[in-house]
C-alpha cells in the first residue's frame, strides 16, 4: 500500500493504481491525476446549472426578451450599473490597500483589532447596512436629529442616488480587497523589499515599484469580487434609490409571468459579469510569484510610522466607524428601543443555530469543491483549467433569485429527493460562493513553490500525498480564509435561502428580512446583531491565527 515510487515509473500490473493507464492519456492531462480534472469539471458543471436554466427560460420568451434587452432604457440602466461598479471598485481598493498595509506591515497600535474590525463589515447584509445608513445620515435621520437642537439643522442633504449607493457599498465591500491583499502581504518575501532598499530606493519608492506591483494579482482578485458583488446587489441600491440593472431583473421576477424576460436580462447581467472577469484576467499577468521555502521564517520588517501614526490612526478609525460603527450603533439603537417598548423574544437562537449550521456546511463543501479548480488553474494554466476557473465566477454575479429558481427548476425535475432540503440549499451556496473560495485559494497557491511538491514526490510520496502533506499546510491560511469568507457570505445570503430552504427552517438572514419587511425594526436588529457577532468569531480567529504563524 505504501510502496514508494519514483517519478515516471509505472506501477506493476495489478497494483490497483491509476498510473497504469496514464499512457493512454494525452500528455497535457497526464501530469495531474485524472480525478482532479474530473472533479473540477463536475464542480464547474454544477455551477453551470443555473445558467442553463436562464438560457432555457430566456429562449421561451423569444421576441419580447430580445426587445427588452436592446431597449434604450435597459441599456441606460446598464450604464448606471457600470458607473456604480467603477466607483465602488475604485473606492474599495483605495481604502483596502492602505488599510491592509497598515495592519500587516507597520507598527500601528492594536493592529490585530483593526484587522478584525476592518473585515467585519462583510457580516452586514447590504440592505441592513443601507437601512442603517439612511437611518443615521438620512435627511431626517439620527444625525440630523442631534444636530437640530444645537445647530438648527433642519434637513441634511440626502445621500440617495449614486453617491449614497457608492459610499454604502464601498464601506460594505472593501473587506474583499482587504482580505486578499492582506493574505498576499503576509506571504511576500521580505528580501525583495530589502533588496530594493539596499539598491537605493526609499521605503515609499520600494512600495510603489516593488510591493505594489506584487500585490496587483491580489488586488485584482479582490476588486473582481467587489465588482461582481456590486453588480448583483439589490437590497442596498433599492433603499438608496439608485436604479440598477439588478433592480430591473428583480422586478421582472417578482411579477412572476415575466420570468422569461427576467431570465433574458439575467443573461445580460451574466455577460457583464463575464466581461469583468475577462478584464481581470487580462490584467492579471503570469503571476508565478512564489516565495522561497524559508520566507515565513525571516523576521518580518515593521515600518515605523513615526509622525504618520496619528493620520494612520485617524484613517483606520474613520473607516471602521463608518463601515462598522454606524450600522452596529443603529442596530443597537433599534434593539434598545424595542426592548424599552416591551418587546420580547427578540433573540431567535434557533435561527442563529440554523444559520451557523448552514454556513459551516457551505464553507466546508465550497472550499473542498474549490480546490481542484484552484490547483489546476495555478499549476496547469491552460485553456481548460483557466476556463473552468473563470466559469466558476459566474455564480457570484447571478442574482440569488436566479440561482434559486434555477435550482428549483432542476431540483424539482431531476432531484426531487433533495428538493427543499439542506443538501440542495448547500449546493446553491456552493454555486453562489465558489468564486470567492477559488480566488482566495488561488492567491495562496501562487505563493507556493511547486518544487516543494516535486521534492516530496521524488522522495516517494504519491501526488495526492505530496499535495496534502507539503502544500496544504502552507496554504492553510488561504483555505481558512476561503472557508471563513464563504461562512460569512452564507450567513447573510437571502434570496436563494428563501426559495430553496427547507420549509420550516429559519436563518438569521430570513428573520431579518421578514422583520424588516413588516417594519419590526427591533426584531430586525436583534438577528442582525447576532449575525455580526456570529461572523466576528471566525473572523477574529482567522486574524489571530495569521499573526501567530508569522
Amino acid at each position: 500500500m505504501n510502496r514508494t515510487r519514483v517519478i515516471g515509473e509505472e506501477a506493476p500490473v495489478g497494483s490497483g493504481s491509476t498510473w497504469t493507464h496514464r499512457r493512454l492519456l494525452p500528455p497535457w492531462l497526464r501530469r495531474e491525476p485524472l480525478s482532479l480534472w474530473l472533479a473540477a469539471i463536475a464542480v464547474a458543471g454544477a455551477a453551470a446549472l443555473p445558467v442553463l436554466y436562464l438560457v432555457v427560460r430566456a429562449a421561451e420568451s423569444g421576441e419580447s426578451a430580445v426587445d427588452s434587452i436592446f431597449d434604450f432604457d435597459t441599456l441606460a440602466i446598464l450604464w448606471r450599473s457600470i458607473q456604480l461598479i467603477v466607483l465602488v471598485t475604485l473606492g474599495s481598493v483605495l481604502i483596502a490597500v492602505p488599510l491592509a498595509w497598515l495592519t500587516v506591515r507597520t507598527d500601528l497600535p492594536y493592529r490585530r483589532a483593526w484587522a478584525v474590525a476592518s473585515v467585519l463589515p462583510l457580516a452586514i447584509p447590504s440592505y441592513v447596512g443601507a437601512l442603517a445608513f439612511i437611518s443615521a445620515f438620512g435627511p431626517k435621520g439620527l444625525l440630523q436629529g442631534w444636530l437640530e437642537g444645537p445647530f438648527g439643522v433642519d434637513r441634511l442633504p440626502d445621500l440617495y442616488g449614486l453617491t449614497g449607493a457608492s459610499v454604502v457599498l464601498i464601506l460594505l465591500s472593501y473587506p474583499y480587497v482587504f482580505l486578499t491583499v492582506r493574505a498576499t502581504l503576509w506571504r511576500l518575501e521580505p528580501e525583495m523589499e530589502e533588496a530594493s532598499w539596499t539598491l537605493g530606493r526609499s521605503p515609499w519608492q520600494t512600495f510603489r515599484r516593488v510591493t505594489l506591483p506584487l500585490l496587483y494579482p491580489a488586488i485584482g482578485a479582490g476588486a473582481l469580487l467587489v465588482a461582481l458583488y456590486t453588480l448583483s446587489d439589490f437590497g442596498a441600491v433599492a433603499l438608496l434609490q439608485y436604479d440598477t440593472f439588478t433592480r430591473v431583473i428583480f422586478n421582472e421576477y417578482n411579477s412572476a409571468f415575466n420570468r422569461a424576460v427576467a431570465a433574458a436580462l439575467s443573461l445580460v447581467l451574466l455577460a457583464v459579469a463575464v466581461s469583468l472577469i475577462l478584464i481581470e484576467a487580462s490584467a492579471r499577468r503570469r503571476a508565478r510569484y512564489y516565495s522561497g521555502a524559508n520566507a515565513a521564517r525571516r523576521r518580518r520588517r515593521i515600518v515605523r510610522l513615526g509622525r504618520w501614526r496619528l493620520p494612520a490612526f485617524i484613517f483606520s478609525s474613520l473607516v471602521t466607524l463608518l463601515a462598522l460603527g454606524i450600522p452596529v450603533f443603529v442596530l443597537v439603537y433599534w434593539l434598545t428601543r424595542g426592548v424599552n417598548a416591551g418587546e420580547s423574544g427578540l433573540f431567535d437562537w434557533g435561527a442563529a443555530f440554523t444559520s451557523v449550521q448552514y454556513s459551516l456546511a457551505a464553507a466546508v463543501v465550497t472550499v473542498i469543491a474549490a480546490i481542484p479548480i484552484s490547483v489546476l488553474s495555478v499549476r496547469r494554466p491552460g485553456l481548460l483549467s483557466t476556463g473552468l476557473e473563470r466559469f466558476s465566477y459566474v455564480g457570484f454575479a447571478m442574482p440569488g433569485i436566479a440561482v434559486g429558481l434555477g435550482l428549483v427548476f432542476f431540483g424539482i425535475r431531476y432531484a426531487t429527493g433533495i428538493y427543499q432540503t439542506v443538501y440542495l440549499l448547500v449546493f446553491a451556496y456552493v454555486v453562489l460562493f465558489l468564486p470567492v473560495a477559488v480566488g482566495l485559494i488561488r492567491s495562496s497557491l501562487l505563493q507556493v513553490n511547486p518544487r516543494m511538491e516535486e521534492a516530496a514526490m521524488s522522495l516517494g510520496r504519491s501526488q495526492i500525498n505530496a499535495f496534502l502533506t507539503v502544500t496544504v499546510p502552507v496554504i492553510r491560511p488561504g483555505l481558512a480564509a476561503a472557508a471563513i469568507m464563504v461562512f460569512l457570505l452564507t450567513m447573510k445570503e437571502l434570496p436563494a435561502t428563501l426559495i430553496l430552504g427547507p420549509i420550516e427552517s429559519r436563518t438569521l438572514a430570513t428573520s431579518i428580512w421578514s422583520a424588516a419587511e413588516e417594519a419590526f425594526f427591533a426584531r430586525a436588529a436583534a438577528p442582525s446583531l447576532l449575525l455580526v457577532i456570529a461572523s466576528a468569531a471566525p473572523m477574529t480567529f482567522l486574524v489571530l491565527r495569521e499573526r501567530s504563524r508569522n
Partner: protein
Amino acid sequence: MTTEIPNFLARRTILMALGLAAVLVLVIACSSDNNNDSSENSGPSDEGGELIIYSGRSESLIAPLIEKFEAATGIDAKVNYAGTGSLAATLLEEGDRSPADVFFAQDPGGLGSIIELVKPLSDELIGRVPDWARSSDNLWVGISGRARTVVYNTDALSPEDLPDTLEGFTDPVWKGRIGWAPTNGSFQAMVTGMRLIWGEERTRDWLEGIVANEPKVYAKNTPTVAATGSGEVEVGFVNHYYLHRFLAEEGDGFAARNYFLPGGGPGSAILVTGAAILKTADNAIEAERFLDYLLSAEAQSYFAEEAYEYPLIDGVERADMLPDLASLSTPDIDVSDLGDLAATQNLLREFGALP
C-alpha cells in the same frame, strides 16, 4: 534509491477532513430534525394530517396564527415564507410537481399570476366574504382587507391641506414632497384599479403629473411611511395599516397619520390578501380546513388586532382606530381584476416609474 517513508501527515490530514465531514453530516441531520420540531407549541396528534403552505405574508405576522391553527386542528403545518412574487415564480417553476398545498398571497397580483395552478373553492368558504373580496371564478378568497390611503406628516401638514382625490397631487405645488413605492404590489394593484375606474387616458395623465413632481422612490410601503414620519417627504401613497405598526413601535409621537381621500376613487381602493388551494395539493382536506380557519372569527380578529387590517367576515370588528370600511368611499371594482399587472407595469415603465 527508494526508501520507505511513513505517511503520518497524509493520514492525519485525511482523517481530519473525514472527521469534519462526519461532524457536518451529523449536524445537518440534527438540524433538519430540530427544525421540524421547532414549532414547540404544536403537538401534532397522531390523526392530524400535514399541510404545506407557501406564504407571501411575513413570518413574524403569520407564525403565531399558524401555531394556533395547529393547536386547534392537530394538523402539522409547514410554512415556506418568501416574497409573494418569488413564491409565485417558484410555484410556476415547480409546476405539476409542486409540494405546496396552499398559497397565501399578500396581494391580488400574486394570485393572479398563478391563477392557472389553483382549483375552485367551495361556495361556503367563498360565501363568508363580501363579493368584492374574492375572485370571480371562486379561485381564491380574500382573507383580510387593506385600504389604500395617503399618509401625511403631521408636523408639516394637516388634513385641510390635502386634496380630496389623488389627482390633486399632480398639482406642481406638491413637487418634491411626495413619496411612493411603484415596485410594490399593492401600489401596482391600485394603479390597475385606476385603469379600470378612470380608464387609460386619465391614468396616464395622473402618472405623468406625479412623475413631474419628482416623487422620492422607496422600495416598499414601510420605508415610505418611515420617511413620512421623519419628514423626509410630506405625503406617501401606502396601505393603511403600516402607520399603526409604527405607532405601536414608536408611540403616538410618530409624526404621521393616515388620510383617507374623501373624494374616493382608486386612491381609496380596498385591496385584499388572499389564499388559494393548488391543484397539485396532496392534502386538499387539510388545505380547506386551513382556509376555513383563516376565515374564522379567531383568525380574523387576529388580523384586525395584530395587523390592523380589515376583517372580511361578519361578526368581527375592525380595530378601534380604523375608520369604518363602509365610510370609505371605496370604488366599485372587482379585486380579481386587480390581478392583471402586466399592462400596469408596462405603463409604469413607460413613465419611468419602474426601472
